[in-house]
């Protein structure tokens, strides 16, 4: 029996090179695939299991300042490998205008910019092309546009931080590592106000980002552009060959 309504909740590689997948088979069961094993759970059992894992995760982090509720769970999944290097956590107030985000720079290559130049803020003001074209993970069946609308309406209605989740920065830097949608919504609503952010401090400033994103990105970006150009030329060549075949058939 096969279920067409499978929503992939997680699909990652394990350290041993195997797979770890969690699927929601709507109406049927939650499946956890771990290499060749499959565990079937009801939703209730899955929530209990998730709570248990959450407890394990917290106990592995030897830091009393770490509160798992302060982070978006999908962000924690992205940074799980950094956690062993976590030295400390602090909360501080920063002006929104000081925060830095990635944006489309000269020649379309990503570069750092102020929050006021953020694609999300632009989208909130009606110019949503850059945001709609941006590749990102959203909730199931949620478009980039819908995500902007959903987060901004939550910020407008429930304030910040909601659900105890904060905008996250690393080490001594001001790059937003998580929470660009929240920061842009706050900026759009209140202008350049002071907000509380969470700063994660890692050993020896590990995981810091390069100050010059444009220079770092320009070579890979052009490589991709050249690759796309070759593919386009190749496709055109194939079409021309097809036309030739039809004509001389």
């Amino acid at each position, binding site marked *: 029996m*096969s279920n*067409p*309504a499978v929503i992939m909740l997680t699909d990652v590689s394990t350290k041993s090179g195997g797979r770890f997948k969690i699927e929601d088979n*709507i109406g*049927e069961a939650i499946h956890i695939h771990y290499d060749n094993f499959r565990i079937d759970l009801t*939703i209730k059992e899955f929530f209990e299991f998730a709570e248990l894992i959450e407890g394990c995760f917290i106990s592995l982090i030897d830091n009393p300042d770490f509160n798992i509720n302060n982070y978006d769970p999908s962000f924690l999944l992205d940074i799980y490998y950094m956690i062993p290097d976590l030295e400390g956590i602090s909360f501080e107030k920063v002006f929104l205008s000081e925060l830095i985000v990635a944006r489309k720079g000269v020649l379309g290559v990503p570069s750092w910019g102020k929050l006021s130049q953020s694609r999300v803020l632009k989208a909130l003001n009606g110019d949503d092309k850059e945001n709609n074209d941006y590749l990102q993970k959203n909730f199931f069946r949620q478009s980039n546009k819908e995500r902007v609308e959903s987060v901004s309406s939550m910020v407008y209605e429930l304030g910040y931080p909601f659900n105890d989740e904060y905008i996250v920065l690393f080490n001594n830097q001001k790059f937003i590592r998580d929470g660009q949608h929240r920061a842009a919504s706050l900026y759009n609503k209140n202008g350049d106000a002071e907000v509380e952010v969470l700063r994660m401090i890692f050993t020896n400033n590990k995981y810091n980002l390069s100050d010059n994103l444009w220079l770092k990105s320009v070579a890979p970006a052009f490589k991709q552009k050249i690759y796309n150009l070759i593919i386009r030329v190749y496709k055109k060549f194939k079409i021309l060959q097809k036309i030739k075949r039809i004509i001389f058939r």
Partner: protein
Amino acid sequence: MEYCSEKEIVSLFDNLNEAGVNYILLRNLDCELPSKLSVNKDIDLLVNESDELKFEKHMIKNGWEKVKHPLGHFPYLYGLKPFKFYQKNKIKLDVCFQLACRSLNKGEWFPLDMKIQLDLWLNKQFVDNKNPWNYILSVEDEVLHLVTRSVFDKNRFTEPYITRIEELLNNVNFKILSDKFELVFFKYTAYMVNALKSKDYNNIIVDYIKFKDY
């Protein structure tokens, strides 16, 4: 609007009947067939897997050209036979060999449960009327097909689908329908049946995705 030639559509079905191909006309929404089918639309036909070769030979012999499917390449899972697409003049024929739907995951196509597939052929309805096609799906199978197509392929219930579903629900056996739904919607079956009975088409898909009583 330009329509496909009625004469050619009639001839298509006459030839299939004559050749003894085991087929079912999957849908005829808004009664477009045989005289009001736009040239932009296609005819959806289900052909029994065991008649695939016979069908293909018959189509080629009758001047139909097998062309690339307009939806392009998409993954087929669980042994689903790829769809085939034929064209003759302005008539287009979309042929499948199993009742299938798209997965909510990445939109891969895959067949509905084996029991549903077997029942299709046992329960197909002979339509003894002035239309040229001989067989359509049973009432319950057609409701299942239209609902799965709306939920999984189209992600919405469109007006022609709603009209046809409501027409069919007047004659449906809800016990049989529920048994079929259970093979697709599992514990959501009762909710789905109730939603159809109460015509709550706008909320079905969101309710289904948010369902957590299992």
